[in-house]
């Protein structure tokens, strides 16, 4: 294998690693962070009353959103375990 072949093959592999890394490596933390944001109970300030009344709410919709985000993250971990065990069979090494 010549040097230019090695470099072009490596560049292609690098591109794939980077693409998957960006999609999952940034996507999953973002998903998890969104879950934490949804889950966090919102402080609603009622500016109309004097003194301003605050109440802590977490709407059911937000909680569902958080649940979906965390569930997807758990699925990703399960997928990771599958890749660890069967990766070579699935992708041919």
């Amino acid at each position, binding site marked *: 294998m010549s040097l230019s072949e090695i470099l072009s093959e490596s560049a*292609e*592999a690098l591109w794939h690693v980077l693409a998957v890394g960006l999609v999952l490596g940034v996507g999953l*933390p973002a998903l*998890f962070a969104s879950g934490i944001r949804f889950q966090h109970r919102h402080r609603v300030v009622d500016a109309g009353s004097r003194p301003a009344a605050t109440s802590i709410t977490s709407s059911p919709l937000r909680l569902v959103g958080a649940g979906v985000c965390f569930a997807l993250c758990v699925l990703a971990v399960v997928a990771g375990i599958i890749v660890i065990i069967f990766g070579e069979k699935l992708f041919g090494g």
Partner: protein
Amino acid sequence: MTEALFVLILVIVTALGFDFTNGFHDTGNAMATSISTGALKPRKAVALSAVLNLVGAFLSIEVALTVSNKVVSIQGADGAPAPELMGLPILIVVFAGLVGGILWNLTTWLVGLPSSSSHALLGGLIGAAVAQLGIGGVKWNGVLTAVIIPGLVAPVVAGFVAALATWVVFKIVAAVPENSRDAGFRWGQIGSASLISLAHGTNDAQKTMGVITLALIAYGSWTDLHAIPFWVKCACAVSIAAGTYLGGWRVIRTLGKGLVEISSPQGMTADTASAVIILSSSHLGMALSTTHVATGSILGSGVGRPAAVVRWAVAGRMALAWAITLPSAAVVGALCCLLANGIGGAWGVAATFAMLTLAATGMYLRSRRTAVTSENVNADWDGGLVPAVRPHARRTSSRHASLPRAVGNPQAGSAQQATQP
């Protein structure tokens, strides 16, 4: 006992020793961030990682006979030993390569620098192959594609992904107060750190299993190229798990405290980026070193957070260590091979083994003089690996770590008092 059997036994013991150093050298890759953010107590973290490494090692279903085949010409394409090297010659090359790998692992551990165990092993094998077979014994293309290019690519890709992820995550949770935010991220951290540990057990124990199986084939007591003796699998699994449980506290401290001051969100992004890249890269045509990826990710998680402290001097020392990993291990591998062959046969291997034992004991004793343990692994980083004062923090939480240590800071004071006996 025949000469070859005696050498085989020493090769197996040395391989398990390498597996053990591989375990404790790499505990930090998975657990450094969880330990430094307080997501897990140090002892619990290494115990979890050890169990997952053990499980991971048993999960491996591949036969990694071809690991050495990428860089040295001692085997045929199917992984079987080259016929002319059967018996002692190949056992000596493998033995010398393992010694090179172990000594490099111990040296970098002593100075607290993470470095790739697989690069160290490959380096040792390359040196031994040059000494045994001449310069033609090395596959230089393989060195380029399996060692040099991945070594350059891994930290950059991982660093970039982790930096971007950290930046995005901090944007998303900007409105969430720090303490409720961090509690959530610690769970995420433990999840991705566990995946890294599991993958490490599978990948790295597999390499030692491959090496021992290769030695058994060379000796003539095993012939199946597609299976590994069960006792080899057990021995390697236990060895890497025991190493992991010992905890390479020096390396953990550098990764968790020295490189970047890590908060829980950063720990989660760094670990997730590492897990994703480690799990995907080998299936995408470029197997990257766990150590290089994990270190790059931790560094990236510091770069991606505007206010974070990143110690570039520490990163520079690591980069230097990586650059000289291959040549250093190769020199030791070559010297060991020359020594073993110079004295000749079983006596040569025994003498080299004695030298390895002496050197390892010496480095262990040296490490005791300035010990880094589970007690002081999280002490504030004041410029050096070994904490200058008695440790105060068994679990410095990210909240404490990320606060400026201003005079009269009540948090810092309470953290100190809280752990007084």
